[in-house]
């Protein structure tokens, strides 16, 4: 009887430990091919009528870097897949949603880039190709959270290539210009 109780306790401890450790074990592990697919997913408020979605689709498709878009009315989301080597500008996504007749909310980015220090803060630097075949650099500031701490601990050197998924929000404008970087609250990452 006593032996059974000890066995039960050990089993419970193993299960709890597994549940606790598993997110840490898998967050930095190599991911499936689909998980590393660059994309921007925007939560679109007001997306309730299919006959209106045409305007949204049309505006999204007008963004030069967009290869494919998937509009899901059940989830109220638009998922944008970029063309090979190109990067989708979040400001353009927001503008397209507004012009399409809806309200953009949470924006999730899944993107590959180099982990760098930018003005003394951790950031992701993305080098992409524009429609005119020019190199374009985009910076995402990385928000301080537990995933960033783990990312910092995982990278071997500045410039390490990583793939991150996270929620992007607008940072205050820099100086006297209208230019503002986006801050990404990392949800998961993969070292490439």
């Amino acid at each position: 009887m006593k032996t059974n109780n000890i066995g039960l306790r050990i089993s419970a401890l193993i299960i709890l430990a597994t549940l606790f450790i598993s997110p840490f074990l898998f967050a930095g592990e190599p991911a499936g091919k689909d998980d590393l697919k660059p994309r921007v997913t925007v939560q679109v408020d007001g997306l309730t009528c299919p006959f209106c979605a045409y305007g949204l689709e049309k505006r999204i498709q007008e963004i030069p870097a967009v290869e494919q878009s998937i509009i899901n009315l059940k989830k109220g989301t638009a998922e944008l897949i970029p063309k090979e080597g190109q990067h989708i500008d979040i400001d353009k996504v927001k503008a397209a949603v507004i012009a399409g007749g809806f309200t953009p909310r949470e924006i999730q980015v899944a993107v590959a880039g180099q982990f760098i220090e930018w003005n003394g803060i951790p950031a992701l630097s993305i080098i992409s190709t524009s429609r005119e075949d020019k190199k374009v650099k985009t910076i995402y500031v990385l928000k301080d959270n537990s995933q960033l701490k783990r990312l910092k601990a995982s990278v071997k050197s500045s410039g390490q290539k990583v793939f991150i998924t996270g929620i992007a929000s607008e940072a205050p404008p820099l100086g006297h210009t209208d230019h503002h970087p986006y801050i990404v609250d990392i949800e998961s990452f993969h070292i490439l």
Partner: protein
Amino acid sequence: MQIKLTLKLLILFSIIPVVSFSQGPPINTNTAFVVGLEGTAIRTFGKVVSKASLYQNGEKITNDLDQQVTVFALPIMVPYEVIPNKLVVIGVIPFLNKEMNMTKEGTRQSRGDSGWGDLKLLAKYQFFQKDTRSSTLRMTFLGGIKLPTGKYNASDAEGPLPRPLQLGSGSFDILGGPIITYVRNRLGINAEVSFRKNTEADNYRFGDILSTNFVLGYRILPKVYETYPSPYATAFLELLSQFRGRDRENGVELEDTGGKVVLLSPGIQFVLSRTFLVEASLQVPIFQDLNGTQLGIDFSSTFGIRWLIF
């Protein structure tokens, strides 16, 4: 005497344009949306209005001359998006066939005309929008002008056609009013109020018209709409009310004109692809209080398409 009565009866024709030109995802009522199919899709539909019941002071009486009025309207609407999600201008021109039949001295006689009617230039401006994750509330003002492009002086062997039988009114008229649309998941509600101020042309002025429409729409298929585009069907129930003032000829109010009509309109709409839909509805009168002696609406029906080509 018979001809005079006929002329009076025909005046009820002028109520028809209000019914014919309503538009929007609800079949006979406008929607507050200015995007998607509402922003760019060419729309046309066939509408038949049949009147064969004679009313006197609101009571149905015997139609001795077996008079019947049938109007077929085929409006073509072309919208153009001026400011995305804000302002759309719309041109509407109807092709009309108006026909009146009656039996006089044992002979069935017919009068009428067919051709293009009056052009309407409308602007639709969205002034309020509140979106949540599963709903949207929008408010729009729709207003415009009706131009006298349709023929209004046609005549036949019996002389000039009565003004309500003409294809156009000959007048510049203005119209406008607010529209509210609320959509939550599968349910949509639309409400529209519109006032049309008619002016005089050739000594005749059609009565002003106040229209109020209320619509419930429910997506019947599919139960869960997931990825756009997917085909779907919506059922509508519309309540269409019209209050019309008396017409005036040579400054004199015509007794047998104007009145109140309330129509109940069940309808169905199939959206087959991202750019094409078909729709049909039937309008039956549930209340008619017409001034003097007039023909009332027995039924009207609509069958139409919307095709997005831009």
